[in-house]
């Protein structure tokens, strides 16, 4: 079976869990005999793992101007205002003139390089909507020039691309919901993003959600027929040897770690509150907030105001091996997410023999047994769990023993098989 997949990021160039999940799933699916996957990202760097599938960057695909002009499927995507005129490579001055001219006539321009290619940053910058739209343009082109049976688009950034590919070819579209804007915004959704998500979900033939929590959001908040939405849980890759690297611990204190974006969605303030409670009872413990985000400064100020700065450490954003180094010196991992569609990081912590405390408001809580579960707002319970893990050694022993086994049994291959079963409703 040939699959055309659209994603926004791919390891090693990632900014969060989405790229890791896409990679894991793709790898897991690629172990199934007969699977042929073409994974498209806006920008490819050439150092992506391509041992079992192909990864291409949309920026490397030349656009046939005439065919794009003829693509009717782009017209309906009005919310991202694709009424494109492709222009060949120009100087910035010329481009600006053209843009002004086009804007006056109600059209939008897409700038290409000399070879008829589009430029993508593949990030989440200020031209994000434009990139999403451009990505859809290229998606249509890729769909027309490649042979495949089914389209699979990961998260809202790629839904327009998926739709474009579907319109261009009539092939079935599966969209994969790793998160919704309700998770990211804490309920205060961005109307444009919501619209893109909703359109994607309605036009998709099947929707895969990463947890029942997310599935319910899709059904209730976006008004989707429950029969169309399936839950496929994420998994985690086994650790590589270099990831088992042990960092030598320079201190005798216990280490409790928060690792993730420091944003409202991840609940960093509950971590601080729980930490403060623990520090009132014991002093041989340090708390690490690893990650960056819009609440980071606030957290730094707050821990200072609470008088616990000397016990709090901020590492900034960690990626790659640094994540595993951080785990190797941690005694407890805490994920107090307010809304977490899945949450792979506790699985990574458990792989590194770090007991995890997770919120019930995370998708991973639906499947993990050997993690301590609390409500994100229940700071007392969270503090109690941290204290228990630090003070009653049998608890950590149990968590490490059973947790490692439990995570070991969560394989991307199994997630891949479930995705295949969904494909098979359309393709034999």
């Amino acid at each position: 079976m040939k699959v055309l997949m659209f994603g926004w990021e791919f390891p090693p160039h990632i900014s969060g869990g989405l790229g890791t999940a896409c990679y894991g799933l793709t790898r897991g699916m690629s172990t199934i005999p007969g699977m042929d996957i073409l994974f498209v990202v806006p920008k490819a760097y050439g150092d992506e793992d391509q041992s079992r599938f192909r990864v291409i960057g949309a920026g490397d695909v030349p656009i046939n101007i005439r065919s794009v002009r003829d693509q009717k499927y782009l017209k309906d995507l009005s919310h991202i205002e694709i009424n494109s005129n492709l222009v060949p490579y120009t100087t910035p001055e010329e481009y600006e003139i053209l843009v002004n001219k086009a804007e006056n006539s109600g059209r939008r321009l897409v700038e290409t390089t000399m070879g008829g290619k589009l430029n993508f940053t593949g990030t989440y910058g200020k031209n994000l909507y434009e990139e999403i739209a451009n990505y859809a343009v290229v998606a249509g082109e890729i769909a027309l020039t490649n042979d495949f049976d089914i389209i699979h688009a990961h998260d809202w950034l790629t839904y327009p691309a998926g739709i474009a590919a579907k319109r261009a070819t009539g092939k079935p579209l599966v969209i994969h919901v790793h998160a919704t804007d309700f998770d990211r915004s804490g309920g205060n959704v961005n109307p444009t993003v919501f619209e893109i998500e909703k359109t994607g979900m309605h036009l998709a033939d099947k929707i895969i959600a990463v947890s029942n929590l997310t599935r319910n959001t899709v059904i209730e908040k976006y008004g989707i027929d429950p029969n169309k939405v399936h839950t496929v849980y994420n998994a985690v890759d086994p650790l590589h040897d270099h990831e088992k690297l042990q960092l030598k611990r320079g201190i005798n204190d216990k280490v409790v770690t928060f690792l993730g974006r420091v944003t409202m969605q991840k609940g960093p303030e509950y971590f601080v509150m729980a930490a403060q409670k623990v520090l009132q009872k014991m002093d041989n413990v340090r708390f690490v907030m690893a990650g960056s985000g819009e609440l980071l400064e606030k957290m730094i100020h707050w821990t200072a105001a609470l008088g616990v700065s000397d016990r709090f450490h901020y590492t900034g954003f960690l990626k790659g091996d640094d994540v595993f180094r951080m785990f190797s010196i941690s005694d407890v991992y805490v994920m107090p997410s307010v809304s977490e569609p899945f949450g792979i990081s506790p699985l990574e912590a458990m792989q590194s023999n770090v007991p995890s405390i997770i919120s019930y408001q995370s998708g991973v809580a639906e499947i993990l047994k050997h993690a301590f579960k609390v409500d994100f707002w229940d700071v007392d319970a969270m503090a109690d769990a941290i204290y228990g893990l630090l003070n009653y050694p049998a608890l950590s022993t149990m968590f490490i023993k059973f947790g490692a086994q439990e995570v070991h049994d969560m394989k991307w291959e199994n997630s891949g098989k479930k995705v295949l079963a969904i494909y098979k409703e359309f393709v034999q």
Partner: protein
Amino acid sequence: MRTICLYFQVHQPFRFRRYRFFDIGNDHYYYDDYSNESILQKVAQKSYLPANAIMLELILKHKGKFKLAFSISGIALEQFKLYAPEVLESFQKLAETGQVEFLSETYSHSLCALHGREEFERQVNAHRALIKEHFGQEPSVFRNTELIYSDEIGSMVARMGFKAMLTEGAKHVLGWKSPNFLYCNAINPKLKLLLKNYKLSDDIAFRFSNKGWHEYPLTAEKFVSWLNQIPEREEVINLFMDYETFGEHQWKESGIFDFLKAFPDSVFNNSSFSFSTPSEVAKKLQVVAAANVPNPISWADEERDLTAWLGNEMQQEAFHKLYSLEKKVYASGDKIIEQDYAYLQVSDHFYYMSTKFFSDGEVHSYFNPYASPYEAFINYMNILSDFEIRVNAGILSDTDDQVSRLSKIIKEKDEQLEKLEKRLADKKKPVIAKKAATSKPAATMPAIKKAAGTEPPIDIKKAPSKKKK
């Protein structure tokens, strides 16, 4: 004589409240009064009261032919007194008929038989006194918590003067042998053993309302027909189960009370079986063999072993930590500490920490107030940490008294010395005072206390030198 021996277990734990680590050292009340009271009253209404009413009716109806035995934990009796005195009265009414035997067990439904003899004897004696007080009987038959038994435990029970003991007819112990005979302890043959017929007992206790069971529905007649199929020479059918089987584990709607009501009639009309109490069985029947049980067994789960309470690291850590406090608890002489110590031993607390059936839940999740065994463990350990502080404080305050008494003596001697030195100095040239070592009470006190306890501290110079020993 072929006979049926009925024994029912009555127990309810004192459940703990949610006890956070920041309560440690601040709040010494551990119990969830609300759930203890509401659960007890619910079980009383659904099970104990209606079942006791039926038992009384059956005893009166069959005039001396229908008999049974109860074992009621001390903790359950305390809760009856607190929350449902009418339940205690209904048991007392049953006791008055003379057809009901009350067995002995540990006061707090404890696992202390696995720890050591001293606490075990303390608990059993406390329970014995309680049974005597409420039911006017001196128990002669013992049943250990969860029917836990081994050769060693049996021998310990025999030494305490019991004539018989109840345990599980575990397949891995009996092998091809039948539980339907009287056995004896392998170390001390004087102690008779009654073994549970788990097949027939569990048909009532676990399978009665199971619609997927091929024998469903179970009627008294059908059950008696099974009894009749048992070979003639097998003498006693021990049906042992939780009393909550009637009305709580098997709901009233399942017809369990109708089964109970019809059972004696069916037995008398359709079989040659009689009913006997455990002590009657022990007295009348001949022992056929000794049961060899080197490793402890219980009536729990398929394995019939201890893994439901002591199967994982958390349970073991909690168990060892708890019993490591034993000496200090009784050294404190504090009745409330002793009471909490007993309540901390209730086997249910350890059961809640079991990870055995974490994956498929079922029996272990029944009545479990915790979302996971990990929560149960943290809660227990928090309470135990506070308890330990109290136990140590009890002993410390005692030490403090001695320290201050001794400090006073030192001070007096110091002053005396000073006076004498002054007098000496007045007469002669200045002399170097030798009292340096007396000025650090904290460091020297433990040693002085030891010395002072046995002999009067006469010479101040001796105290510091003793410290070095």
